[in-house]
């Protein structure tokens, strides 16, 4: 059988992944890399680019788009191609919009609430829809993105139809015992939003990493690899599918809530099919086996898109070509370039 003795203990040192989606324990190198990432986000970027609102905004977008895509990553981990994330981002955005403009709820309360509302809606719709697999699930979720857009369009007085909701107030200050912990977000300075976005991203990464390496993550893997077998050993497949989908929608909702406050508006057209598709693409581009996949994918594509600003007219076209090239030549994503055998070694891996 050709067993290689030194590979019997495969888990330690499958350092092919930036953050091992399977290992419960991170190697020192991985912790170092993650710390480096956090440092770059929170220290290097503000220092180097702090004077340039344009770049800060681009990175803010990238950060939250990665966060939203992390949600889609979770549904990938149970074996579904989820094209509905745009719908739940829209729900989150409208949740903030309505709560803030109509009921004066503070953004800081709206944020988790949007997540919960999206998650609840996701659980409700997901319960029956998750029975579908493969293309059926993809088509249905794609249709869901459209359906929610139409719902917003026809929401009458609540969603204000095509005109959308504007003048969504920016996040206010958070104070404790008279001390301001978080300053009021004003329009001139993009940094507070940037820091919030990065904080969300880091929190999201840690949360999803924990999910993936815990027993729950293994249950999800079992669902992805063989639902029947999982059922035969007593796993309540339907329940765990909904948990995964709910978690995904939670992240989508929070992302949408962020953007609603960031841009201070929300329209039915804010998230379209293209956006749902993009979230999925970010995951794929980075590499589905890696938790950092969506992050790499989103950052690369968002930054690339901006860089192509020079070729304005052909920006979208080049984007499309890039997509196909990546799919054909990097089917396991960019992060798989660091490993041999596309990251699927004989031992361990995905």
């Amino acid at each position, binding site marked *: 059988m050709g067993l290689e003795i030194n590979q019997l203990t495969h888990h330690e040192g499958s350092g092919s992944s930036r953050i091992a989606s399977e290992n419960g324990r991170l190697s020192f190198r991985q912790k170092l890399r993650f710390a480096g990432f956090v440092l770059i986000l929170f220290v290097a970027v503000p220092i180097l680019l702090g004077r340039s609102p344009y770049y800060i905004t681009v990175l803010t977008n990238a950060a939250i788009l990665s966060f939203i895509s992390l949600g889609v990553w979770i549904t990938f981990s149970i074996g579904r*191609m989820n094209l509905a994330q745009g719908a739940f981002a829209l729900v989150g955005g409208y949740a903030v919009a309505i709560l803030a403009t109509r009921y004066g709820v503070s953004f800081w309360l709206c944020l988790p609430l949007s997540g919960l509302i999206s998650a609840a809606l996701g659980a409700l719709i997901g319960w029956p829809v998750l029975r579908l697999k*493969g293309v059926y699930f*993809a*088509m249905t979720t794609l249709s869901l993105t459209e*359906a929610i857009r*139409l719902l917003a369009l026809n929401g009458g007085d609540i969603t204000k139809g095509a005109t959308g909701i504007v003048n969504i107030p920016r996040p206010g200050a958070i104070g404790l015992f008279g001390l301001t912990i978080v300053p009021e977000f004003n329009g001139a300075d993009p940094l507070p939003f940037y820091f919030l976005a990065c904080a969300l991203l880091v929190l999201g990464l840690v949360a999803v990493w924990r999910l993936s390496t815990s027993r729950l993550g293994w249950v999800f893997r079992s669902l992805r690899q063989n639902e029947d077998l999982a059922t035969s050993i007593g796993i309540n497949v339907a329940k765990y599918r909904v948990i995964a989908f709910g978690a995904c929608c939670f992240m989508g909702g929070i992302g949408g809530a962020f953007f609603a406050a960031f841009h201070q508006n929300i329209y039915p057209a804010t998230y379209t099919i293209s956006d749902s598709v993009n979230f999925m693409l970010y995951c*794929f581009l980075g590499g589905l086996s890696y938790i950092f996949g969506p992050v790499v994918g989103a950052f690369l594509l968002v930054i690339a898109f901006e860089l192509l600003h020079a070729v304005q007219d052909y920006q*979208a076209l080049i984007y499309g070509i890039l*997509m196909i090239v990546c799919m*054909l030549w990097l089917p396991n994503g960019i992060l798989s370039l660091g490993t041999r055998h596309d990251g699927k070694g004989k031992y361990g891996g995905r």
Partner: protein
Amino acid sequence: MLVNGVVLAVNYALIALGITLIFSIMNVLNFAHGQMFMIGGFVVYYLYGIFKVNYFVSLVAVVIVLGAIGWSFETFFFRRMRRMATREENSMLLAVGTALLLENLALSIFGEKQRGVPPVVTGVFRIGTAYLPAGRLLVMVLALALIVGLLLFVQYTKLGRAMRALAQDREVTHLMGVNVDRVAAYGFALGAALAGLAGGLLVTVFGVNSGVGNVYSIKAFIMIMIGGAGVVPGAILGAIALGFVEAIGYELLPGSITYLLIFTGLIIFLILRPQGLLGKPWG
């Protein structure tokens, strides 16, 4: 209202059959189907609308252009993907990529504006209390003719039978000496051409703009979800269902509520019957 339903149903059937063909032969959901429809519309717009080429000739051009696109997609993209034997999601993703490609290509070349073409025939017919513009009648007749032609082709010609065999069992067909790659490429070309033809026909009724791609892809999806993916009668059934529901809906209800109801109904329908009316259960 019912008449409109028929017109829509027949044209939608072209779309549904095209995507069903591709799906059944190659197991790929052609996400770019709507974009192909759109390109068909643009070909007719340019040839017939701008350069005043004969309408029917421009339809032939549609077949050539879209056939070439479909053929290239299979030959250069999807075949490669199959050889690589990666995760199954990758084919779907590639399909999404092709849709993006066509969408952005069209946007770059054709711009954003809505375009229309002059009517091919003028006049109005009266059927009972309904009015049927001759243009719509023409479109309906042509679509019907194409559908019949397609069904005959698939049933009786060598290539058509090869496609059916491929849809049923790839391995066995290969073993029987059929050049699977070639048949698949022709299949994709044919499916694409059907989408384009539907676009070329409907452009005379609705006009076209580069944004309709996703809209029609979704229509295609809805039809095969209702009727069952990968089966021809299912496609036709789905087209009839959607055509009529749309016509009736737009007549009776304001604007976008029609589709909202369609989606809600669809989701409920799928919950109860995930494989569609006639389809095999998926996954």
